[in-house]
Structure formats: C-alpha cells, structure tokens
C-alpha cells in the first residue's frame, strides 16, 4: 500500500546539518501492524509526518499503491497541498499524544466528524467502533468529562470513523498511566486488526511495541527491524 524508498530528511541547527532520516525503506501493506521505536529525537515523529504528507523529505519517495494498479503509485512527497489534504481526508487517520478531541462538541460528534467530512457515515460501522472501544456509554458527554484513557479511546474511534486504510498514531499512550496505556494500546491494535486497517504506531515503550506484528527501530537515521 505504501512504499517508502530511500527517504532522506535532515535539518539545520546553528549552521550544522543533522540527518534525521537516512535512506529509509519500508513497505506498509494493508492490515499491517507496525511499531516504530527509538530514542527521543530519533526522528520517529518525523517519519510519521512524512507518511501523513504533513512534511516533505529532502529526497526519496513514498509511493501510494493503488490496489487496482499495484505496479504504479502516486508519490505522496510530490503532492500539492490540495492533494495532501485529500490524502489525509480519505486515506489516513491520525492520532496524537494529546489534543485529539474538540472540547465544545460531544464524544459522538467528535467521533463522527471525520466520517461526516468525507461523507462516509456508516451507522453500523460507527456503532461497532464504539463497542469495540467501550465508549458507547459516553457518547453524549463532552471530552472534558472523560478521563485520559477514555479520551484516547474516543480519539482512536475518531481516527477510524472514516474508515481510512491507514492509521498513524504518534505516541498514543504517551500521556497515559500504565494501566490505561495497556488498555488503549491493546484496543488500538486489536481494533485496527479487526477493521483491517494498517497501523503505524510510534512509541517509546517496548511493551506497547510488542503488541504489533512488526517492530522497527530507528536509530541514527536508519530503520532496522527488530
């Protein structure tokens, strides 16, 4: 589905150039469950941002393969802003460490938002999502009325409500205690598996990483599979 080829990304700090991604190659297929670990500042989030077409690499390609034309792909690094917006709207779900929900609307409205934007509202699917994440009791509450763990579960539901083929999660359990962290990470992986949504999760927790099928380690700009 997504093929990363020879991605390079560096940044300049006080006149010095630091290479953060150095010839990254990775293939993400439908339904894959991938975790990326690494030390703080290793470039994990940068990689995720590139996958979400939020940023552009210095060189390399990220090919989005059309299932009907497996040998041809759109290079998302060459997307215009409009194309990037469309890509994120339809093909990607994003979960962040925090600030995932809009305070002034209910849980249900938060969850439904991406689906309504894309027009892909399927009541049954949404219900299934809510049940899987055990948040159906909270649908009329405001985010401020939920605990941290509950909020992240709602965020997962929101990230999946428009049925994206790919879900990108950047440290989804970073702000949670260990109990909620276990619960949320478990739910994240199983829900994605259930929905056949590819998951790429950035984490610094080995315990969370072990839940995924593939574990990769990003160090010194290089990605190696554990």
């Amino acid at each position, binding site marked *: 589905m997504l093929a990363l080829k020879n991605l390079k990304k560096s940044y300049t700090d006080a006149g010095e150039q630091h290479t953060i991604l150095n010839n990254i190659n990775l293939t993400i297929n439908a339904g894959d469950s991938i975790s990326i670990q690494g030390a703080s500042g290793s470039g994990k989030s940068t990689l995720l941002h590139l996958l979400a077409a939020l940023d552009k690499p210095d060189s390399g390609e990220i090919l989005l393969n059309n299932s009907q034309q497996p040998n041809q792909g759109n290079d998302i690094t060459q997307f215009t802003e409009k194309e990037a917006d469309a890509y994120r709207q339809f093909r990607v779900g994003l979960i962040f460490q925090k600030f995932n929900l*809009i305070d002034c609307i209910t849980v249900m409205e938060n969850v439904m938002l991406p689906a309504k934007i894309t027009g892909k509202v399927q009541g049954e699917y949404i219900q299934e999502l809510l049940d899987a994440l055990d948040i159906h009791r909270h649908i009329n509450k405001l985010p401020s009325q939920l605990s941290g763990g509950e909020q992240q579960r709602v965020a997962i539901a929101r990230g999946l409500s428009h049925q994206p083929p790919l879900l990108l999660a*950047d440290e989804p359990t970073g702000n949670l205690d260990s109990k909620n962290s276990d619960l949320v990470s478990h739910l994240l992986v199983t829900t994605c598996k259930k929905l056949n949504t590819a998951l790429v999760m950035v984490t610094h927790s080995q315990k969370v990483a072990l839940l995924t099928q593939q574990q990769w380690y990003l160090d010194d700009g290089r990605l190696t599979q554990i």
Partner: protein
Amino acid sequence: MVSLIIAAAGLSAVLVINSSAKQSYSSEQQFLVANVTYTITSTSSKLKLSKQDYSALRVKGVNQLVAVAQTKQHVYVNKQRITQRRIDFTGIDTFSLITQPSFSNPVPLAEQQNATAQPDTGTSKASNEANQLIRQLSFNEPTAILHPQLLEILEESINANLSQQFTTQFGEPLAGLVAFESAVLGNDIIMDIAELYRLYPDAELSMLLVVGDLTRAQEDALRQFLPDNLKLTSANDGEQDSELTSSFHLNLMAMALLMFVVCLFIVVNAVNLLLNSRLTWLKICRQLGISRQQLFVVQLIEIVLLTLLASFIGVLLGIELAKLASPTVQATLENLYSVEVGFGEVSIIGLFIQVFGICLIGSVCATFIPLNKLNHQLAQTKDVPLSLTQQRFWNGAIWLSFGLFAGIAYIILNNAQALWLLLIATALVILSGCCLLLANYPSMLAFIQRFIPDRFPLLQLSSKQSLALSGKTKIACCAFFIAATSNIGMNLMVDSFRGATAGWLEQRLAADYYVYNSGEPNIAELAKNTGVNVSQRLENYISFQGKEMQQFSYPTDEFNQQAMVFYEQSENKNLWRQFEQGKGVLVNQQFAFGFKYQVNDVIELPHPSTSELSSYKILGIVYDFGNPYAQVLMPFDMFELSKSKCCIYALQGAESKIDLLRENMLAAGVNPDTQLLKTEDLLALSMQAFDNTFIITDGLNVVTLLVAALSLACAIIVLMNDIRPQNMLIRSMGVSALKTQLLALFQYLLLCFVALIFATPFGILLSWILIVDINYQAFSWTYPLIINPLKILQIYATSLLVVAIVIAIPIVRAGKRPLIEDIRWLN
C-alpha cells in the same frame, strides 16, 4: 509601544485643542477687557446699533462704554486671496478703552516714586507691552494685533522674493501687523475701530461694552437712556451662553474622554497581547522560582517606563498634530458653537505631566485585566468549566442586571428632563441590551445551529465553537453590540431627521423661487410690473417670558395653507379663518415645548405693528427643524412694513416673468445669481448642508465600529493559542487551510450577527430615545421616527464587512502557518 504612543499623541492633541478652545471660550466672558459687566446690543435687526447711539450715550455721561465693531474678511496679497477662512477683524474704540479705570489709573507724581522703588516686576513687563500696543493702536501708525501663529500662517503665503503687502480685497494695505502672544487670540486681527472702518466701511458696530460695575442708580439711569432699539444685557446672564457653555464644555470633555477611552481600549488590548506573547517566558521564570508578585512588579515597571517614553514622544507628536488639525478644528468648533477658538498657550511640561499622568493611570489600570488573566495562567489553575449551579447563578445575575438597568432606564426616561440624566438612561438601556445579549447568546446560537443542515458538518462545528467563543469574548462581543446599536440608532435617527427635513422642506417651500435680501430695495416693489406674485415674510423679534423669540408673518391664501406642515393642530375646521382674523396664531414646536403650551391654549403677545398686548389662541403647532428660536406665526396683514424687517420673499410666476424681475433686481444693484434661488436648487442646497453636517456622525460611527472590530481582533489574537489545537486537529483531518480560515471567520461573524440581531431592537429604541426624549429636551423640537429596513440591512452588511476585514488579518496570518509547525508545537 506604538499603541501607547498613539494614545499619548491623540490625548495630547485633544488636550491642546481643548485648552486653547477653553481658553478662548472662557475668555469670551471677559470680552476685551477685564471687568466687562454689561453689553449693549441692538434688539432689532432693522434698527441696528449705530455710532450715534454710542456718542449719544457718552454725551449723557455713560463714559464706561467701549464700542466694538466687527467684520469677517479675507486677506489678499497682490489681489490674490491668501486665506482659507475669513479672519475676524475686530475694531475697538481704544480711545475710550485707555481711559477706563481697569486699564489705567492716573497716579500722582509723589506716589510714582514709591511705585518705582518697589517695582511690581510680575506685571510691569507684560502690562507695559500691552500698554504700548494699545497706544500704538490709538495714536501711531495704524497697527493691528494678531497671534504669532496666525501671522505665521499669513506670512507663509508671501513670496519672500517680492516685497508684498497684505491688503484688503480692494487693494488697501492692511495696518502693520504686530504679533502678540495671547491665548485668547485665534483667528482674529484686532485694531482700532477707526482703522477698521477705514479698511472695511461695511463693518458693523456689534456692541457696546460697559466696563466696570454700575450702581443700581447708574444701571437704572442707563436703562432709561437707552433707546428702544437697544438693550442692556448683563455679561453674567448668558441667556444663550449657559446652553452654549454646557454644550460646548460637554463636547470638549466628551472628545477628551472619548480619546482617552479609545486609547485605554487600545492599551488594554496591547498589554494583553504583550503579556500573551511572553507567557512561555513568564512560565519559565516561575519554574525558576521567581514569584508571581515579582513578575507583576516587573511587568508594571515595564509598563510605566514604556508609558513614560511613549508620553514623551506622544506629547511632541500631539502638539504637532494639534497645530495641523488646528485650522480645521477651529473652523468646525466655530461653526458649531459660534465660538472663537484661539491658538492657545501650550506649556509643554504641564501637558507632559497631564498626558503622562493620564496614560499612566490608564495603562496601569488597563494592565490589571491582562495581569489578572496572567495570574490564572501562571498559577496553572485549570480553566474548569462552571458547574451547573454556577452557570445558573451567573445567568440569574445577568438577568437580574438586565432587569435592573432596564427598570432604572424606564423610570428615568419617563420622569426626568435633565439632559445628563437622559444620557445616563441611554447608557443604561444599552447596558441592559448587553446583559440580554450575554444571557441569550447560548440559546440564540443553539437556535441558529438548528438551521444548519447535517451535510455541512464543519459549519455545524463552527457554530458550536462560536458558542464556546461567546463565553471567552464577552467584552469584545459587547463592544460590537454597543457599536452596532449606536450605528443603528444614529443612522435611523439621522435618516428619520433627513426624511422629515426633506419632506418638510418640500412641502413648506411651495413657491417657485425665493429671494433673500435684507433691507433696500424691497423686492416686492421691484416685482410690481413683472407679474410675479411676491409674498414677503415680515419679521419681528419680541420678548416672551423673558426670552427672545421670533414673530413672523404667514400668508393665508389657499396655496400657503396647503404648504403648512403641522405637528399638531386644532380640530377646529375654521382654523385658517380664525388665523386670518387674528384670533389665533400658529407656533412652532420650540415654542410649544419650550414654554409648555398646547393647542387651544391662550397666550398674550404684542401686536406685530402696534405692540399692544393681546390674547391669542394657539391654533396649531408646526414643525420648524433646526430653529433655535421659539416662533409664532401671525397673518401678514397684522404687520407693518415700516416696523418690521423683511429679508425673505417667496415668488411665484412663470420663468419669463421671473426673468423680468431678475433684470429689475440687477438694475437695482441686487445680485440675482446669489440672492434669487430656484426652489429645487434651494432644496438641493439644504439637503447638501444637512449631509455635510452629519459627515462627522458618519465618521464617528465608523470609528466606533473599528474600535469594536479592533477589540475583537485582539481577542482573537489572544485566543489564538487556545484554539490552535482544534484548528490543528481539523487540518489534520484533511480540511484545507482556506476552509479553516473561513470557518474561523464564520465563527466570529456568527457572534457578530447574533449581536446585530439583538442590536436592532435596541438600536431602534435608542433612536426613539434620541428623537423623542433627548432632542426634545435639548432643542424643544422633535420629528417622527422612520424605520427603514433597508437601512438596517445596510448597517448589518457594513458592520459585518468592517469586522470581517479587521479580524481577517489575524486569522489569515495564523492560517499561513504550516500545519506541521502546529503539530510540532503542540506535541
């Protein structure tokens, strides 16, 4: 810093203009010399004050009189006019002035030695200088005195290369100009009266000043000496002056306060932004162990220093600004209040202390609100949403406030007559509107949300965010509400006034042409053989209940009966017959409201020609917009041409006949081009004058809108960081930057739209109060309120446009930031 400088500059400019206006105006009361106790002026515009009156009184022993003559003229150089505004040339009888006790007193020689032994250094130099000047006016080469700034303005027009002289229109050289710094000199040139008449033979003797106190006996004797055409007025009476004074001072104070409040507003927002931008730094300081109190003190010190610097720069800028604006302001104030405004004396240090003081108080006070907020932020107190109980409590408080303000306003409006009370009532009405708006924002927004279809999820989201915003931008929303209410109110008032005036003029100006000619020749005489039908308006000025009022003639033919516009009239079908027979009169609103009379009341008035007091019934009250005088209309036949003045003639006739009259007028030395006006032209001129008068209103309306929009924009900037995560989230869902910006704009405009909806009824109410209460109390006339829906819609559009333009700036700026930056910043 810039906003502080603007505030200081604006404030100092206004203070400078204020002080010079006040100096001139207050010195009005002293006239030319200290201790002017009375003035003698003409009662009749037909029999004016003359030189013979003056000399006759002096010969009778009234030696304390000083004659004053005036004329407004342009100044010329080489036959070219160099002045924009006509200068007020004033001639005083210096020969009388120099012998008045308040000017000089002969002191015996023996005493002079002591006086020189202990010189009064404080006064001698200034008084010597003035003495010399007066002697110059009296005896030496013709001299005229003017303020140095006016001389500078005049000299700018002279080409230094050629030797040129200031002259009159006819080339007569003006007297030698001597500059004299005095706060009370403005657009004036003062000279001896003989010199004034030599240069301008058409100058008019405007008044005789009585210098020094009069004993009772002297006053009685003087009153007896006065012929019928003259009246003695105490200088402290100020029958017109009290109204003028309070109005003028109110305006000056209002302008100064307005400037101060606007600046305060700007400063509040500026400080808010300042503190907001440094929040991170301040938080780090807290983490390093610096206490909140220390941080506040540091911030306050910074504000004080900034204010000091800004005041310094601002004062200098403000003085220059005042000098620049001075001619325009002078002209405006003089036209509005018939008050001479001088250049004033500016003490820079005094001004600086004033401006710095005010700005300091303002900026320190203005800092408290943002500091308070900062306090919360630094204390890391979470913004816990209000519990239901708390919400109910606040709601109740707001409703209570609404009731309170509305109730008090209602009581005042129905019972009070004092202008200041009515203004307070107006303020309370608007405050109650604010309360109503705040109380109903949630329900109103919820109501509007229902109309947004599901297929616009982002719009729905936006409207919900709008509701959340309404809680955080209360002040800005209220500011907008007030601006919108005032806009609607003022615009409706002006519109109604305009409509009423236009309609009234169109009906009253029923003739084909009008001529204005004071004195000889009598136009009716000129029109005798032309076939033009001429109606003259004969005018008397009489005294009624101690106040001067107009007694004018009105023709009673069918044509003119139709032309009359009544406010209220007697139900009597024989109204016009009774009027014709001299049994009844028509009065204007100013008379009816001012003296508290109604239709069918009986009043005593002098007969227009015999001056015998008789009783007359009030048959009707007529509209008379803008007339400061009470007026009574009586049939033309009751007047006598020899006893009354005639200035205005109404003409009816075919164009060919009018042309004949035109020729006769030319032959008689009357200029038809300037004095004969076609009714259509007259109407157009009048409405143009009307529109010009209200330009200042329109300007002020835009200013209030801008200030409100500015406030909103500042609120948005401050809230920017709060709403950044939400925007980031929405953008991450694939919504384009442009859409996000438009949605943000929509949020605020929705708030403004709701404010506008509430502002509409309050604006109408405001308009009604202004027309029916305030205008009535202030000027004793009123007109019907006309509500024009199109006008209201226009205001909606304008307000929303202004706000949209102003708030688009921070929104677009924020939107240009790449999403990745937001994500990195937040995560």
